Structures are given as C-alpha cells and as structure tokens.
C-alpha cells in the first residue's frame, strides 16, 4: 500500500535529475553553512526554501504538458502587464524599480518572465510547426525584446540577460537560420554603442571593470578581485571546509548568495570545482537528452530552453566569480542562498521531468 503510494508519488520524478539535484542541494547547504559563518539559522532557512521549491518541482512534474501550453499566453500577458505596472508604480529598492507591491506581498515580475518567455515562444512556434517562416522568428524576437527592455530599464541587467538568453535559445532551437544568426551578431555588434548609452553608470562601470578590474579595485572591481583571490588562494585541493579565510575574514561580499561559489572554490579547490562542473554538466546533459526525445515541438523547445537557461545561470555565475564575466546578479543554481532562484530553477527542472515522464501519454 505504502509502496504503491510512494510509487505513485515519484511516478513523474526523473531519478537521474532528482539524484543530481539532491547532490547539488546538499553541496549548497554545506557551503552555505561555511559561507554564513556557521549559521544554523541560515541553513534552516534554506532548507525551508528547498522544501517549498521541491514541492513546486513535484507539482510541475505532475502537470501534463498540454495544460502548460494553454497557460503560456495568459502567463506571458500577465507578466507583461505586471512589468508595465512596475515601470509605472513599482517600488524602488536600492535605486532599482523591480518590485510591485500588491499590499499583502511584494512580487518581482521579471522572475516570472524567466519562465513565461520561453514558454510563450515554444507555444507560439509549436502552433506553426513545420512551416516556420522568417516573420515567425521576427515576431518571436519581438516577444522577447519587449519584456527584456522593460526589465533592463528597471534596471536589472542579470535578469534581462537571462530572459534574453532563454528567448534566444528557443529561437535558435526552433531553427533560426544561420544567416539571420550571423546578421543578428552584426546588428548586435553595431548596436553596442546604443546599448552602452542605455546602461546605467554602475553597469558601465561593471563592464569597464571587467576589461580592467585593477582600475577600480575597491569600487566596482572589488567583488571580482576579492572573489578571484578566494579562488586562487584555494589552490588545487582547497583550504578545507570551514577554513576559507577570504570568506571568514569578511573580505567577500554577498558570500551566501551570488558569490557563494568563491567560498566553495576557496575551501574545496579546483578538485571541488571539477566535481561541481561535472554535476552541472550531467544535469545539462540529461536535460538535452530529454529535449532530444521530447514528443512535440513545444516540449522540445521548452526542454531545450530550460536546460540552456540552467547552463546560463551556472556559467555566468562561475564566470563572474572567477573574473571572466562582468558582475551581474545571477545566482549559482541550486547552491546560492535564496528562495526565488531555487523556485525558478526547480520549477524548470519539474517541467523537464514532466516532459520526460509524460511523453508516452502524448505519443499514444
């Protein structure tokens, strides 16, 4: 009886993904304990976040995909309306207008867009399966750019980047022609000065600092320099758990959230980084396999976009901590402290699981 109930509960849970996710979550908790100065409170808080996010993952895994395709358009529209709401009447926190106060709670609509944009594009392309024309891609691009512009002017460069990436992945996987890709690259290059003028001073500073972090060692370059020192001083084998001096001597900012990887890399060294990268690669690999075997264009595109978004999180975060990418607010998936990113990521993983476990239902 219990066995049957359990079997029913895990029916739509992909074991490979679940195992990898669990491993990463545990590594995250271990690192968080060290990064937070051995704070049980922080760890407990994160465990609560994890429980909530896993529940959402489970629900996502159990929802058949054709239900999801139905909410794609409404979700996107709601998200867009909320973003406009933020632009008009959003709350300003730390100089950025990102939140919408609904009275009982504060929401950040840009988070919703991380899911809503790939979902909508996948749904849209799915409707025109097999006869995608250039105009479909143009419209698809517009559907990405509108929310991205709204997010970018909040300003929230990190989220804008992730939403752009998610949208681009769908466009690419749907078969955006190489010619257009190259053309886009050229247009993108040409529009850099325009984009540059749209950036806020601190964002420009971040980009400039990337080119030469030493020019502003305690200003915009401070994060990068300190995290690189943490990384480098960790060496090949690391200083050992709870022994990271950079993290513990308060040199490292945001060390439980966006910069937790620096703590990890300092204490577990390059060996630890290899382990982490392998785990991430396995998640990505599994996601790509699921995408390749997905039954419909909608599920294929969605699975591909989710997987690649996960990759983007991991790559951008590790890249910025190790000093090869500018500092943008992107968490390390499943490792960084914080409920929002966990929910977004595990919701995506849940969708992957659903795509995988519901595929026969669709095919038959």
């Amino acid at each position: 009886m219990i066995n049957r109930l359990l079997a029913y509960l895990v029916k739509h849970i992909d074991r490979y993904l679940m195992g990898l996710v669990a491993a990463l979550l545990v590594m995250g908790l271990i690192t968080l304990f060290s990064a937070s100065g051995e704070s049980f409170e922080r760890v407990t808080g994160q465990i609560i976040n994890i429980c909530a996010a896993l529940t959402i993952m489970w629900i996502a895994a159990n929802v058949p995909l054709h239900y999801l395709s139905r909410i794609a358009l409404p979700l996107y529209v709601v998200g867009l309306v909320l973003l406009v709401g933020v632009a008009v009447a959003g709350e300003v926190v730390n100089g950025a207008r990102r939140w919408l106060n609904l009275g009982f709670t504060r929401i950040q609509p840009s988070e919703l867009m991380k899911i809503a944009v790939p979902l909508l594009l996948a749904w849209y392309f799915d409707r025109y399966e097999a006869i995608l024309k250039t105009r479909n891609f143009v419209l698809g691009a517009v559907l990405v750019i509108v929310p991205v512009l709204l997010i970018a002017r909040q300003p929230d460069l990190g989220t804008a980047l992730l939403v752009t990436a998610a949208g681009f992945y769908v466009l690419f996987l749907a078969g955006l022609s190489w010619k257009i890709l190259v053309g886009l690259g050229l247009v993108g290059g040409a529009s850099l000065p325009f984009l540059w003028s749209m950036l806020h001073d601190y964002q420009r500073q971040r980009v400039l600092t990337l080119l030469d972090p030493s020019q502003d060692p305690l200003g915009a370059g401070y994060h990068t320099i300190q995290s690189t020192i943490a990384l480098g001083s960790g060496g090949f084998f690391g200083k050992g758990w709870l022994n990271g001096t950079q993290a513990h001597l308060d040199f490292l900012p945001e060390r439980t959230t966006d910069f937790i990887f620096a703590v990890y890399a300092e204490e577990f060294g390059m060996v630890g980084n290899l382990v982490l990268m392998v785990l991430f690669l396995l998640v990505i690999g599994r996601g790509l396999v699921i995408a390749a075997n997905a039954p419909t264009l909608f599920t294929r595109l969605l699975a591909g976009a989710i997987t690649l978004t996960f990759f983007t999180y991991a790559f951008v975060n590790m890249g910025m901590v190790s000093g090869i990418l500018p500092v943008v607010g992107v968490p390390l998936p499943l490792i960084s402290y914080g409920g929002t990113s966990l929910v977004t990521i595990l919701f995506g993983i849940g969708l992957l699981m659903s795509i995988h476990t519901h595929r026969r239902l669709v095919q038959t």
Partner: protein
Amino acid sequence: MNRTVELRDHQRELYYFQLRLAIVGGAVLCAFFVLLVRFFYVQVIQHEYYHTLAEQNRIFIVPVVPNRGLILDRNGVVLAHNFAAYTLEITPSLVGDLEQTIMDLSGLVEITPKDRKRFQKLLEEGHDFASIPIRTRLNDEEAARFAVNNYRFPGVEINARLFRHYPNAEIASHVVGYIGRISDNDVDKLRNQGTAANYSASDYIGKVGLEQRYETELRGVTGYEHVETDANGKSVRTLRSILPVSGNNLTLALDARLQQVAEQAFGEHRGSLVAIEPSTGGVLALVSKPGFDPNLFVEGIDPQNWDALNNSPDHPLNNRALQGVYPPGSTFKPFMALTGLELGKRKPGFTISDPGYFVLSGGGGHVYRDWKAGGHGMVDLHKAIVQSCDTYFYGLAQDLGIDAIHQFIGQFGFGKFTGIDIDGEVDGLLPSQEWKQKRFQQKWFVGDTISIGVGQGYMLATPLQLAFATAILANDGRVFRPHVVRQIQDSQTDAITIIEPQPRAEIPLSTENVKRVRDAMIDVTRPGGTAAWAGLNAKYLFAGKTGTAQVIGMKGQKYEESKVNERHRDHALFIAYAPADDPKIALAILVENGGHGASTAAPIARQVLDYYLLGKEPPPPKPIAKEEEQEND
C-alpha cells in the same frame, strides 16, 4: 499529400532540432572548458600569487574627518573657524617600543604630561592602525627639527590637522559655544541617533551654544580612505577614498561688533543683554557677563582653568540670557498697562490719587508700598508708566485678576520657551491660579496678584523673554521666533537656506492702545521720566522702561561673606526699543546687583542703541579680530 508533407517536415524538424541540440551541447562543453582553463590558471598556476594576496589581504577603512562649518556674524565677521596646525602623530602598530619612542621624541619637541595623558587615552580607545597625535600645534621650528630626524622614527609622522578656533575669544562666547572632546555621554547619544559612524576617528563635538545646536549642519559627513596594508599592518597605498563633506557655514543675525559694544558697556558688572530685530526675530546681540574663552575647551580644558570657570562665584559658564530667571520688576508695567487697556479695565483718562501706598480692599487692609514714599499724586496711565508708579499697577492688577493677566500677557511669551535656537533655555514663570494649586497645593490669594502688577511676587522671566516681549510690543503684536542663525550655506553647493522670519502669531492689539503705551515709554527717556538721564539728547525716538528687581539668587549661587553686601543689592533692569516710530532694535538688559535700572541698565542701552542706530562708537574702542590672519578651511 498533406500527410506526407507533414511527416517529412516532422522528420526534418526533429533532425535539425537534434543537430542544433548537439551544437548547443558542444557550445556548453566549450564554455565549461573555458571556465576550467580559468580555474586552472587562477587556482593552480597563480595559486602562489593569490595565496600571498589572501595572507596579506588587510584592507582598513580609515575615516577622514570633515572640515567643520564656519560661524560668521551678519557682516561676515568670523566667530568660529578652523586653522591648520602641525601635529606629531604615532602609528602604534608600526612602532616597536612605544615608551622609548616617546622618550626619544621628547628630546626633539616638548611633550607635556598632558600630551602623554591624551595620547594614552586615545590609545586605549583602540585605533591601533590609525595615527594618534602625541603633540599638537607644533611650531615651524619644532616641525623642522623633527623632519630632519624623521628617519630615526619609523611610524611617526607630522600631519597638518585642522583645529577649531574662536578668534574673538570671549565675545559672544555663550552664543557660539564651543566644541569639546566627545564624552561617553555623547557617544551614547550618537549611538541612539545612529550617527556614531560619522564621528569615527574624531574626538570633538559641539558642546554648548550654536556649536551644539547646529552640530548636524556644522559637522559635515566623514569621508573614508580604503587603505591596503601589508601583513605587518603598514599601509601600502590608498585604494579608494570617499571624500568627506565639509560642514555647512552658519551666518548669524548677530552683529559681532554690536555684541562687543554691549559687552564692554557692562564694564565690570555681571548681567545680560538681549537685542532682537523686531521685524525678523533675529537676535542682534546676546550677552551674558562674564563670559569665557571657548578656545580653552577645544583640545580639552585643563583642570586649573576648569576649576576657575566652574567654581567662580560669577558663574561665567551660565548663560544668564537664557537661564537666569529674574523678577522683571517695573519693566513689566508697560505690558500690564496694555493689558488694562485691551481688556477695558482702564481708560487712558482714568486717574487715581497715589498716597504712596496701596491698601488691599477687603484683604484685611494689607498695605503695599510704592517705591516713592510720598506718592506720585494724581496718576493716569501715562504718568504711571513714565514715573513707574507702583500704586497704579497694584490697583490695575487687582482689577484684572491673575487669570486675565496670565492669559493676556502669556501671549507675549512670558512663562514659555521662546524657541530660540540655542539649547538650555528655561521658561520662567507667569503664575496662575492653576499653577499655584499644582505647585504648592494652595489657593491663589488676591495679595499674590498685587505683586504681579509690578513684576514681582512669583513672576520670573529670563532676559531673553523680556527682550522677546519687548520686540513683540515694538512690532505691534507680531510674534517672530527669536533666532540667532539667519542663513545656512551648504558647503557643497553654496546654496543658502534662509531661516525665514515668518510671524509665528499675531496678537490682536488696538493701534491706539499700543500708541498710548508707546508714547509713555518714549517719555520715560525724556525729562521727567525715570530714564531721562540715559535718554538725554538721543537723536532717535527712544522708548524704554526701567525696572528694579529684588534679589533672588540664581540657582546654585553660593553664599559668600565678603560679597554679601554687593550681592544683596537689587538687580537693575531696562527694556527699550528704538527708533520708537520704526523699531529697528528691541532689547532687554539686566545688571545683577546693579541697583536701579535707570542708573546702570539704561546707560548700557543708550550705548548699544547709539552704536546700532547711529554708528557711534563708545569709548574706548577695542579692535575686534577679523578674518585677516586666519586661514579658513
């Protein structure tokens, strides 16, 4: 056909999709490979470099104290400024044997036990990495002598630091106040306000007067230098500095020269003078004699000076203008007269016959004496003020009743805080039935009211309150809050914020009634009036009222045998404004133990008014220190 097309397309879609997935997979591997290379470079190849950096990673944040704002009088005369002076400073973490170093240093420059004590105190406060002054205000010769020997003293350096200076010393000392060392009390206060961080590395704060009241404006915002230090704590370089924001400058309504004239006019007398510009409430002069030299406090006052100031029977540290409470005596009479007219209890033509005393009707025949033994004869309101007839006002007070007096005269600010922008003001006392019940659990007697009529009894006012009330009278009932600071100039933008002279209230007064009181006050300073001598040949319409108050010692004043006689003399009071037809200045004067108002207080008023209205310098003039030799900021 449709079906075949769909199948073919479907296959092709899937093929292309999987092809693209493969490309993407390759890109992912490439990206991770780039990361791996970066990790290898940082964690293996450059490990030693970063390891050293981490070991030496000590970045200290060193606060930079902002320049304090200047205090200027209405004409730009500097009352408080900063000057740079050399200080000899030691960074303890860089010095091996601290005692030996100080010993060696004292061979080059003089280091007093006081210097050592202060150094010790700062050292205990634990600013290890920062440099701590051991000797301040080195002269050029001392600085040069040290500079030659600098190499022998690692960790010791000469810095130019800013010191607060009050160029006019005693003049306006109670207004300007002073800064002093931050006490534990101050620290608690700053912590509660959440501003403690702004005081890191500085050891002074405004203690008294404007320096205290406008601390926030004058202070500015502390800057920071991020200093990278090596493993030995030696600062290697400054990585980033956030410049301090200088404090804002204050421009006062006060006229320093007028203040000086007034202070001199007191001579050796103790007392107080407050002069207010009626049309704005700006305080033109605020004297409390004797004063003190605020410069003594800047670097911590030494015990001898402190004892001298604190234990002096003259109480130079007390601000008599704000904190001294005195019975206003006869200077209260113009306000009583106006009350009588306004409330309809006296007609201008109403006359009494003054036998030299007043008998309280129905009160068991208690007798209240006039100051003039034989009486003033037939007295109307005008004459009652001009000759200061007590009997007239005894009767008026009885007819008005204490509550009417309390209510009406309260509008002139008696018994309330004036709201001046210097801390420590006391509120005096304008009694009422309710007050007596609360204070003594006693009924109010009619006899209590009689004394109030001549500003005695329970009645108490500060010199500031008297001047404030006089200014309101001079201003036909318009009330402006007395203020010393007229403008605040932002140090960053030079934008000037003017403290707006908005009337706080307006007492509805009949012009005719005010004119009657005013005419009487003008005649006070003319032949036949009590201040005729002081008003002799005045080139402006001079309205005043003399007063004499029986001595009630100031709080905390000690009995001292040798001075008993002098200190039992009455206080002399005088209120005045001029020109009476267009008042530019209103003032109140109190001379402690000065005898009669007419003889000591009124002549001071004449000198002050002559200077302010005619520019006439009183003899002997003493030059006031101006900006010239001082380097500001």
